[in-house]
């Protein structure tokens, strides 16, 4: 028997790691991975709440979050490739113009 709050604290830690990575990392691919970390933290709290209140809908929501994350990863990585082709860098500090 694990209290629900343990799961929530774990998911909070994951989300905080994601936010920290998003702010401190300079490589655009690592920033993208931090976003995945945040999404997974939220997913864990969804599943924990679903198990606590016997609501399977929480699990269906996690399923939808995964689908959106997959679509986001595909489009985002394509954007990264397009940016790299014109800028020849992955450092976000050197990407300071909207115009490619």
């Amino acid at each position, binding site marked *: *028997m*694990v*209290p*629900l*709050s*343990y*799961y*929530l*604290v*774990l998911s*909070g*830690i*994951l989300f*905080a*790691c994601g936010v*920290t*990575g998003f702010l*401190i*990392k*300079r490589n655009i*691919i*690592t920033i*993208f*991975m*931090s976003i*995945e*970390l945040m999404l*997974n933290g939220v*997913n*864990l709290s969804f*599943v924990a709440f*679903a*198990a*606590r209140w*016997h609501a*399977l*809908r929480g*699990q*269906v929501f*996690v*399923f*939808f979050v*995964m*689908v*959106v*994350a*997959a679509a*986001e*990863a*595909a*489009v985002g*990585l*394509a*954007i*990264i*490739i*397009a940016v*790299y082709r014109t800028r020849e860098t*992955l*450092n976000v500090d050197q990407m300071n113009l909207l115009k490619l």
Partner: protein
Amino acid sequence: MLHLALFSIFGAICVAGAVNVLIQRHPINSALSLIAVLASLAVEYLLLGAEFLAAVQVIVYAGAIMVLFVFTIMLLNAGEEERTRGSRVAIVFGIPGMLVGGILVAWALLRYSGTGPVSVGVLPGPPNTIAQLLFHDFLLPFEVTSLLILIAIMGAVVLARGEETPRPATKEQG
């Protein structure tokens, strides 16, 4: 007791992997430790009774999405990131603020959550129950999701294909 032990072990792996994602300088190392985080999260889902989600987590997240990441890192030949100096304000106020906020949230959750324990196997999460919900109650969102994936596929192809016109012509215009 076993449940708590498993939760602690895989939760520790999860947190260690998440911190390692931040510490590592090379993106490929970050990606590999992110895979460890995702795999241990699948075990946590299994502990919560979500069998289908655990399988999807391993197949889609740790499999498909992370292969895409690793493939992009290899394709772009990403090296170590350069270290840039953060602002002083972020170090002076940000880190203590984050610590205080985190401790407050954890304390409030542990003290006032007012929620009972979660036990294994209480919630049936096998694929047939999920499918019943997904194809009956959530049919419209499910179909909209397929549209979203179609748009994402086309967007990825259009973005990654690059321009077909020769580069010098576009440079002269710009």
